[in-house]
């Protein structure tokens, strides 16, 4: 979270000024965004538009009322010796009704917009998330988690701003400008000229000041980024700073950066701060000019310009300047929102994982020696193979027979990292991969469950090309325990049940016992109901591994992929993890990225990998006799 916040600051979230993000096709994004947001809410939007118009018209009519009041009632009434106020009272009643309608309209459109904007955000979040869940692993490899998070937080927030605030306010400003402009033209053409001229001056100055401030804003953002980066790094290493008595030096460097930031921030802020007063006083000048010119006009009575007209016009003058300022403000926030929408749509446009598989996994049972499909859980699983040629269906029992046939793979086509990998595992066999970091051990296991697709060759699972198997079913048949354990927020029980959502409490406990996790779980303050948060941060590395093993155990898959942890955990927990893994492997085809001697020695076959190739294969005994790379790994002797 902190990282997130830092990013926010680094981005210098000042909407009023500063350099605008560059967009390739803002019009297209805008159209798509509006379509996305409003297509579900067309009746709502129509009502909103009507309500906005009504609300603005009521306001304009209110200002016009001042002229009517002065010219049609007060002026004549002042001349009567015995004034009769019933007509005026009548007018006021009518105005009260008009105002009432205006107020109700305002309430109605604001309220509807809540549902439209929040509903859109809700849909947006869900669309983003469901799409993200279906993206291939590659996407997560090539995009930083911070950037993905930022889409959900910052970018969605800019959309909220735009839909909830900017668009309604733009609409209302535009309508206000048009109707106020018309009213002003009706009241007096020369005064309208004065007002519009002043607005042009205002826009010009705003542009000038914003232009001047641009470089300081850039400098401020740069310095803010620099100091925040420094803070992050130094806080991370604060203990090292202490150990090396580096405090003074660290403080010196910090002060330098702090002063630079102050310098640019002060200048940048200065420009933002003076823009407001400048525009306000220019507004006042406009007001003064109109009073003076209007006064002269009223004396001469040119074109029927009365005192009442002047009173109304002066109010219009104020209400004309306001929306124009508003529009320029909203415009910036819309640009921000479009930049956000651009990133959101990019994610939504990412192609999802393709799945052309048609072989599915079903429950099965034997009837008269024939494998048939079964609705209930039988403990026997079968691949349901629909032959496209003749529409016939065959069933193959799921056994866990895996064959890699001359497989090539690269994360990108130009750079192949695995070459001619050929291996086979009979059901129940244990295959160990050994080799130094980067040799391609993890990559091989990632191909089996199709996190990545191979470039060349074939992988067969129970004799079926895995490309033909539906990805979900393929993955359901494979259990996996990763080296760095990931747990989810929720209770311990929920985390184990992740492997099998409909597991009973007894099954959960049985799985925990098998994984050697039951003991420590019962010692937790709330046992199986202990809440884990932040990736199980309150548990030790070893305990988290035990939970991951239990999670795999409850899924009870015929084929298992294990990545043994290299990180040092203490000997006792290590023993527990070890025997938990051993029990889990029993009777299953297991691919294990091995770091422990015992695992390697007990394997049915050991693959020694180097630079993406299998350079040696065989049992422990055979490889030792071969005196090759394995021998040197094992004994530590150079060959």
């Amino acid at each position, binding site marked *: 979270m902190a990282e997130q916040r830092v990013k926010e600051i680094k981005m210098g979230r000042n909407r009023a000024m500063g350099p605008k993000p560059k967009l390739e096709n803002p019009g297209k994004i805008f159209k798509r965004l509006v379509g996305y947001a409003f297509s579900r809410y067309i009746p709502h939007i129509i009502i909103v538009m009507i309500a906005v118009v009504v609300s603005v018209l009521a306001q304009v009519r209110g200002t016009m009322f*001042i002229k009517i009041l002065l010219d049609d009632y007060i002026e004549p009434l002042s001349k009567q010796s015995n004034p009769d106020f019933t007509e005026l009272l009548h007018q006021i009643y009518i105005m009260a009704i008009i105002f009432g309608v205006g107020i109700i309209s305002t309430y109605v459109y604001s309220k509807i917009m809540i549902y439209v904007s929040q509903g859109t955000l809700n849909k947006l979040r869900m669309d983003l998330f469901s799409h993200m869940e279906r993206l291939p692993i590659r996407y997560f490899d090539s995009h930083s988690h911070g950037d993905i998070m930022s889409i959900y937080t910052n970018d969605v927030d800019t959309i909220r701003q735009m839909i*909830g605030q900017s668009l309604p306010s733009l609409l209302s400003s535009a309508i206000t400008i048009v109707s106020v402009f018309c009213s002003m033209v009706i009241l007096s053409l020369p005064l309208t000229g004065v007002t519009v001229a002043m607005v042009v001056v205002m826009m010009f100055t705003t542009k000038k000041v914003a232009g001047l401030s641009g470089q300081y804003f850039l400098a401020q953002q740069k310095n803010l980024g620099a100091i925040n980066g420094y803070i992050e790094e130094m806080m991370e290493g604060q203990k090292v700073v202490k150990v090396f008595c580096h405090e003074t030096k660290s403080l010196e460097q910090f002060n330098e950066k702090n002063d630079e930031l102050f310098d640019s921030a002060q200048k940048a802020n200065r420009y933002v701060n003076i823009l407001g007063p400048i525009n306000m006083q220019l507004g006042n000048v406009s007001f003064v000019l109109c009073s003076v010119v209007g006064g002269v006009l009223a004396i001469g009575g040119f074109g029927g310009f009365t005192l009442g007209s002047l009173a109304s016009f002066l109010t219009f003058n104020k209400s004309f300047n306001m929306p124009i300022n508003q529009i320029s403000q909203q415009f910036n926030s819309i640009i921000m929102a479009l930049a956000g929408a651009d990133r959101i749509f990019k994610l939504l446009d990412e192609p999802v994982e393709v799945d052309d598989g048609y072989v599915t996994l079903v429950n099965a049972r034997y009837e008269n020696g024939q494998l048939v499909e079964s609705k209930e859980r039988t403990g026997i699983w079968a691949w349901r193979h629909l032959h496209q040629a003749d529409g016939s269906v065959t069933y193959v029992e799921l056994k866990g027979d895996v064959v890699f046939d001359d497989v090539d793979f690269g994360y990108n086509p130009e750079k192949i990292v695995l070459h001619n990998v050929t291996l086979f595992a009979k059901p129940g066999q244990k295959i160990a991969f050994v080799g130094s970091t980067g040799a391609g051990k993890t990559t091989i296991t990632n191909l089996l469950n199709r996190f990545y697709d191979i470039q060349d060759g074939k992988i067969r699972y129970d004799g079926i090309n895995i490309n033909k198997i539906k990805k979900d079913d393929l*993955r359901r048949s494979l259990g996996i325990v990763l080296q760095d354990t990931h747990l989810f927020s929720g209770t311990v029980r929920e985390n184990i049940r992740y492997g099998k*959502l409909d597991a009973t409490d007894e099954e959960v406990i049985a799985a925990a016992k098998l994984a050697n996790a039951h003991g420590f779980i019962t010692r937790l303050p709330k046992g199986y109901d202990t809440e884990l948060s932040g990736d199980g941060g309150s548990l030790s590395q070893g305990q988290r591994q035990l939970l991951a093993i239990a999670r795999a155990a409850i899924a009870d898959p015929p084929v298992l992929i294990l990545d043994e942890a290299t990180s040092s955990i203490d000997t006792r927990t290590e023993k527990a993890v070890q025997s938990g893994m051993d029990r889990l492997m029993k009777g299953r085809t297991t691919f294990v990225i091995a770091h422990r001697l015992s695992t390697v020695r007990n394997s049915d076959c050991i693959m020694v990998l180097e630079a993406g190739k299998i350079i040696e294969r065989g049992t422990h005994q055979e490889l030792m006799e071969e005196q090759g790379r394995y021998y040197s790994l094992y004994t530590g002797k150079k060959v």
Partner: protein
Amino acid sequence: MLKTLLSQVKEYKKASLMTPLFMVVEVICETLIPLLMASIVDKGVGVEGGNMKHIAIMGGLMLLLAAAGLAAGVGGGVYAAKASTGFARNIRKTMYENIQKFSFANIDKFSTAGLVTRLTTDITNVQNAYQMILRMCIRAPFSMIFAMGAAFFLSPRIATIYLIAVLALGCVLAIIIKFAMKYFTQLFRKYDDLNATVQENTSSIRVVKAYVREDYEENRMKKASENIYRLAVRAENMVVLNSPIMQFTIYSCILLISWIGGRMIVSDTLTTGALMSLLTYCMNILMSLMMISMVFVMISMSIASAERITEVINEEPQIVNPKEPIMQVQEGSIEFRNVSFAYQKDSKEAVLKDINLAIQPGETIGILGGTGSAKSSLVNLISRLYDSTNGEVIVGGRDVKEYDLDTLRNEVAVVLQKNVLFSGTILENLRWGKEDATLEECKHACRLACADEFILAMPQGYETYIEQGGTNVSGGQKQRLCIARALLKNPKILILDDSTSAVDTATDAKIRKSFTEEIPGTTKLIIAQRVSSVEHADRIIVMDEGKIAGVGTHDELLSGNEIYREVYESQNSGNADFDQTGGEA
């Protein structure tokens, strides 16, 4: 809290006082303009045949006021920028300064992420709030009071209506704010849940996909997202009342003024110009009220940030230099006398209990034990990274609490378990150990730590740039660089806290060999998980649950210490780390 923060204004006191002053001038100008306008209407336009001269004079005066207002507004803006950014700079500096004095216990208390947030987001929040206070806190109430005063001057009767309207609107706004704030606080908490779900799914996507739990996760997300939807609608439903209520108040005022004011004009107790000014003041007053409520919300949102900042500024460093510190460590002997230690002073469960131990200068000591057996806690007391709760830790014949902290820490070099390299070249990183170290010295240290070979294999050798957090070197390389960095201090005592865990066993042995040969006089304490890392030490200490469970040579412990034997056997019966035997090149 307020006092602490205000003490940070320092040299920006003048700017902080000038800003509201300018704002008041701006408000006065703004209030006077409608009054002059009334005069134009009444004495210029309203009189028979008109009075052009009066209109011109008043118009000129109004322009002058606008100019004065502009000057004041710009002045206020400039000072406000200076005051607020300067204030933020001082806070940042004071916080950072204090953090530099923090002991390990203080750092643990706040956590790294906590400190980063306080130094970044929280300061930005407070800076914005401070600027808001300077510019608006005085301006808005003054604008309201002046406009109200002018209204009373023009017509007390109508001004009374305003007063009632302000009070009524004020109450309603207060209620709205109170409820809205409550809902928004709940809403922000729910946002954290949502973010947690997204975070988990990005970092654990492999698990999600491996277990085919995409739909399950979607359901979780749906729940979180819909929770937010409901709360957001509820919160915004409160906020949405603002504008209709505001409109209602304004419209009611207009109608009342029209009715009462109209009758007053007819009966000659009010002029037309005054009526027009009163309408302007009505807007001024209500807008100021709106502004006040906004400022209030802004400030209350930044209070949490201000509190977090104050905590850091007011945090007392737990370990400080003694009054008359000893500036030299005589030799590298270490002694623990009845030492016990707990991370929190008031916690009942001590991490270390009754430790008695004496180590001779130049001895090599291995320390072995399970996680939580307090190996790190034991060695951290030696260079006073933490202070013992009871008993004394003696280094070079003197209590560690008598030494100058820098002197002690330079003579007792610790290679931490969780170690960090900083962005910069390898050479720059090494020179943390000794600022003026020559290239030759650095190379020598790297040779001792077996880092020389891989550094030279890098294209830019010692000038290779290390990324933030040392992400472009492997774990084992990082550890060796950290050891070399510590060696450059040329310390009397060297402590390695599980510092070779990612280094292969062969290199590990080489490092230990060079220690024995090249720095025999240095007392060496080596914490390890692997028996092979400690078995050749002069003595090995076996730690178990905060106590020393055995001290002796490898052979002695193997025959006499059950824990040691167990560990040894498990590691030699096929539990040793196979992969790392081969290790990195």
